[in-house]
């Protein structure tokens, strides 16, 4: 027992716990809340409205004349008000439901969405040796901390394995609610997930073939040094720095096809419009969460947005260089293993989050542009188009890799 305790690396445990708390609870959950706000504001301006612009810090409750608006932008406290409302609402469990599964389902939706965050590198590494100057000391300070919760060698596979568990929550919610709308929503969700999971998995095979690696932080480091997969403009990706070798530019064709398939499948996987058939308001009231209220409904809602954020994070990591700053080697802002200054580590985190936010805005923009697909067209697109296209794309990539000897 003593030797077992000795074998535990305490510094590693503490660092992991801090990273989990920081990334899951201080980055993703607030991002979930604020992407709901962003969604409401963007949908409002797209439809020529104003959106939630009133909620501020309620100073009037304390006797002040006016509520305070942060940065002069009204409504920035709206997510907190929404959260409070969800907590205070009546948590109603209908009499006709299967109670055990009814209570279990929201958690099963939320947990995988947060769990997949473990393998996404949200920054390069953080140098904490400056802490010694202000009096903190310890051997663990002198080794930079890698900004990924679990540096797994099977990153994307882990993400897909866990993310597809989310469908169980939706199916259980639909089935245990014992209502026809919920049931249809659950059935639709499961069939949709099955048909898009395959395309999603196959679409990143070309990417993994190009990198020859499944470790997401190594993939990002490679892109930082040699140009992003979709934007090879420096390092080995740029012909002028690489003996006029156009291999990476020729690979842009399969990579672009991969990116399209991946993005569209991600929309379907996260049940976002135009593929939001499981909760399709016009036909199914609210789909699988029709019978849910209060915080249980909020968990479904948050699960959807968390899945969207993680999906965006994965797309950014695989195709758009993750935390890498564009033209980093030219600007001297590239990652140097073990020697990245603390400010650059923070800049990398900011860069990653900025890219993810852009992707989320794109998600929202598409939602308020496209009408919902018809169900048979959705299945047709998944099985008859994307599946075959992704397979052909793998072969095309292999041929190009052989031809250019990359």
């Amino acid at each position, binding site marked *: 027992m003593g030797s077992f305790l000795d074998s535990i690396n305490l510094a590693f445990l503490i660092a992991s716990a801090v990273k989990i708390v920081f990334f899951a609870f201080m980055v993703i959950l607030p991002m979930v809340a604020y992407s709901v706000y962003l969604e409401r504001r*963007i949908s*409002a*301006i*797209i*439809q*020529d*409205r*104003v959106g939630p612009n009133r909620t501020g810090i309620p100073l009037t409750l304390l006797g002040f004349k006016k509520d305070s608006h942060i940065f002069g932008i009204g409504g920035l406290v709206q997510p907190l008000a929404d959260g409070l409302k969800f907590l205070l609402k009546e948590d109603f469990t209908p009499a006709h439901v299967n109670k055990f599964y009814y209570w279990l389902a929201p958690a099963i939706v939320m947990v995988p969405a947060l769990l997949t965050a473990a393998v996404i590198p949200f920054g390069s590494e953080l140098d904490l040796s400056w802490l010694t100057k202000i009096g903190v000391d310890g051997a663990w300070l002198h080794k930079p901390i890698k900004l990924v919760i679990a540096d797994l060698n099977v990153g994307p596979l882990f993400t897909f394995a866990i993310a597809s568990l989310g469908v169980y929550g939706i199916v259980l919610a639909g089935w245990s609610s014992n209502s026809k709308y919920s049931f249809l929503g659950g059935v639709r969700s499961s069939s949709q997930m099955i048909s898009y999971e395959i395309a999603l998995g196959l679409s990143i095979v070309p990417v993994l073939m190009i990198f020859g690696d499944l470790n997401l932080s190594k993939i990002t480091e490679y892109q930082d040094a040699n140009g992003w997969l979709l934007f090879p403009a420096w390092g080995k990706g740029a012909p002028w720095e690489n003996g006029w070798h156009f291999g990476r530019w020729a690979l842009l064709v399969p990579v672009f096809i991969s990116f399209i398939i991946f993005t569209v499948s991600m929309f379907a996987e996260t049940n976002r419009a135009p593929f939001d058939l499981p909760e399709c308001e016009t036909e199914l009231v609210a789909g699988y969460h029709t019978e849910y209220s209060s915080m249980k409904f909020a968990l479904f809602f948050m699960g959807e947005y968390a899945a969207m954020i993680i999906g965006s994070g994965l797309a950014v990591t695989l195709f758009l260089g993750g935390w890498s700053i564009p033209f980093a080697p030219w600007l001297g802002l590239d990652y140097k293993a073990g020697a990245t200054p603390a400010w650059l580590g923070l800049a990398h985190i900011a860069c990653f989050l900025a890219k993810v936010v852009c992707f989320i805005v794109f998600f929202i*923009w*598409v939602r*308020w*542009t*496209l009408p919902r697909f018809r169900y048979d067209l959705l299945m047709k697109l998944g099985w008859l188009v994307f599946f075959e296209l992704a397979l052909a794309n793998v072969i095309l990539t292999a041929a190009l890799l052989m031809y250019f000897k990359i």
Partner: protein
Amino acid sequence: MATIVVQRPKLAWHERWFISTLYKGLKITFLHAKHTWWTLLQGKGEVTMQYPEEKWDAHLPDHYRGAPALVKDEQDRERCVSCQLCEFICPPRAITITPEEIPSTDKWAKVEKRPREFKIDMIRCIYCGMCEEVCPEQAIYLRKDYAITGTTRAEMVHDKKKLYEIGGVRIGLVNKWNELK
């Protein structure tokens, strides 16, 4: 039975595969978003009427039917003679009148009756204007107040004092049957 063949538009391949159509749709929503965003940012132009600060009050038409109210005449006499016609006609039975006899010592003793209490339950009122139409003494009118709010049911019942407060004074014989009222 005649068959009507619906003519479907012929779509080009890029339209059918959502390439040009997606681009067009995203462009339209982007332009709307950009326009609204700019209007909001500059604070000029109109997006939506910001309700509690900006109101329709100045634009309300003359025939607008808001809260019913009692009026007094130029001699400060309450016009209502407690005939209770409005109480009988009121479809949702929102009006309750308690009549009383005007004492003989009063200046207006010859009018004989006046309301001791006149209550309109604004939760029930449907703003139909029948009370105004039926009133033989031109004592009750629908005014332009529309934001009737309260935190209790009792607060939502307008009593005589409140009704005269809203109604105020009407001078002369007001012709109710012109095209406006």
